[in-house]
């Protein structure tokens, strides 16, 4: 019995050496480059189009500034909420209500943009928020992918666990399934298309599906990725009245 165990350990060790492929962390970091510029400051325009069965799709148009784990979001459309602004600092969310100077704290659970959660809008960097483990290689819906399991590094993160598939050949994100603490599947995400901007490929369309309600899905359309010299102090709640 002891011999069997010894051989198993040796085999696992040898398999690790023989694999020699990228580590889970490297795969995740590479996939993140398609969603932003890492910890550097950048901005992008985002359109969120939420579909529900037999309903006219609802649209939100936002400008998003990102630096590290902080995001500043300004609403441009629909016109009835133009001027609304939000600051994300992990789980800390602040909302500025148009026509007032009031900045109120809202809880992460409050949804303001249809199916897309506040965390979905702000999430651009899984490497900072999740610890990855490489499950293996899998063919998923016709694509050969690395399968990663991501576990939230702390309570501040929107989802407790993410099953993440990254295309082996290109390193691009392909699909992810997002779970709550109670292991309930909350979202299924397909990373549908990418565009080359200033020589770098970035995600341009993301499809977000509510697995609990048939026919509920949301498109997130990304445009105008730009590196920006965004000061750390821009991301303060006092600045929500200064956008």
């Amino acid at each position, binding site marked *: 019995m002891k011999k069997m165990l010894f051989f198993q350990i040796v085999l696992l060790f040898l398999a690790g050496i023989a694999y020699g492929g990228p580590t889970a962390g490297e795969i995740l970091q590479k996939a993140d480059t398609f969603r932003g510029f890492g910890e550097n400051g950048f901005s992008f325009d985002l359109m969120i189009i939420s579909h529900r069965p037999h*309903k006219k799709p*609802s649209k939100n148009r936002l400008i998003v500034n990102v630096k590290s784990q902080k995001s500043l979001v300004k609403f441009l*459309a629909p016109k009835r909420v*133009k001027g609304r602004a939000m600051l994300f600092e992990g789980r800390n969310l602040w909302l500025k209500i148009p*026509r*007032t100077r009031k900045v109120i704290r809202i809880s992460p659970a409050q949804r303001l943009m249809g199916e897309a959660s506040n965390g979905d809008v702000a999430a651009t960097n899984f490497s900072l928020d999740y610890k990855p483990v490489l499950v293996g290689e899998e063919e998923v819906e016709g694509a050969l992918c690395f399968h990663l399991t991501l576990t939230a590094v702390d309570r501040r993160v929107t989802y407790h666990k993410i099953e993440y598939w990254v295309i082996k050949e290109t390193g691009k994100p392909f699909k992810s399934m997002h779970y709550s603490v109670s292991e309930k599947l909350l979202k299924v995400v397909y990373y549908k298309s990418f565009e080359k901007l200033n020589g770098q490929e970035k995600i341009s369309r993301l499809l977000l599906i509510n697995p*609990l309600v*048939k026919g509920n*899905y949301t498109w997130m359309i990304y445009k105008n990725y730009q590196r920006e010299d965004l000061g750390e102090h821009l991301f303060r709640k006092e600045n929500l009245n200064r956008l």
Partner: protein
Amino acid sequence: MKRLSIAAISVRFIFVLGFVVWAFQISLSVAFGAEKLSESYQSLEFDEAEGEETSSLLPESMILVWDINYTIYAHRQDHLLNPEKTFFSFDHRKALTSLDLEWTPKLSESLSLRTREVLEYISLDRKSDIGITLLEGYFEWKNRHQDVIVDIGKIKLEWGSGYAWRPTQVLFEGDNSVDTDKESAAGVEMALLEFVIKNTTNTLLVAGMKDEDDSGNNNQLQAAYRISLESQSWELSLLYHKTSDAVITTGLSFTGLLSDALEIHGEWASSNKRDRLTIAKASDGFQTGPVYLPARYEYKQDSSHRNFDKMLIGAQYTFANDMNVIFELYRTMHGYSETEWQRIQTGIDEALTDNVWKNELSSSQGNPYAGFLQQTMGLNETVSLRQNYLFLRWTTGESEDLWEWEQIVQLNLDDYSQISVGKLRKSWSISTKTEFSCHFFRGDRYSEQELNPYAEFCSLSMVMGF
């Protein structure tokens, strides 16, 4: 017993209704939510036409809102403070249309102008008026790192973490309201310096003070220093405020997250001057010739040398179905105590005795009994007359068809009178939203809300964004 039952029924009504809606939505999600994702969305392709943007006529730096509002008021008949409708005549209808323009042009990389002005046309029963008000207009300079900011001009600041009341909102006292989604009060002239040191934001300002009638600034000045500290899921702010007539207020406010769904907040402020007059007996009743003049009460400065505190503790909870509940308890020592309220009641009774308020009595300000009734009516402009309050706000979140219901109860825990508000909102298009709301003011005789001249009022408003 009857008082208790009014309050209890209202609170229970809110909770029972909330529970029913919550249970209904939960059951819906159980019934339909269990349906597993069966379609393959991988083949779903984006329709380019969907992503076409509707162009806005206005630049990004400009927000223009057109607001049309029609309100019908119901006033109390035989109002204690307005006997035989002698002192005040109230309008029953108000039509208001306004254009609210917020414009924030960037003048250079570090300098911008920030303005908000409102053009308003009001039509009441007997008169109409048109006017333009500059609510805010100031220059803002910030350095490259945005850790030093200077604002100079007419500014309106919002401090505090409370929803219905903000005890640390010392710059604009008396601006608390159960309606918190729109502000129409103008700012004051001020010079403000904001700077960041590590994870603290520091604000230092010198400002003018508003006249009590809100007509403009007087010659008095106020200065304040506020430090705000953020750490993890908590924010704590400390405040020091002083006016040129030596009124000093210190305060603190905090907010924190206990979970993704539960937020808590609190505020405390202590001032060495009361924000309202106290009440005292001016003279005992006496016989003068054939006429008996009852005891007379008057409002005067509170000369007690003590601090007056305001405290608020509250929480906000969001349910999985988007339903949101805010709960706040508020205590203000500026409010009238039970003893003072008894005096106010006695003062009203005495003023109404044998219609003495009607007599032709000579004093520098006319009939002192009539003056007392009118002054008491003026107190109603202050939102919180008493000391202990409960606030509950419940919103459903927007339905799939963009309907939203909001219910508010503000309960006076000293006399169990209450304000109940119901609001039904609907977004009809990308630019248009309507709201129908009703406010009800209820209470026993001599309670705070029974002294309110309004019994109820209802409004219909349409807001269009450009």
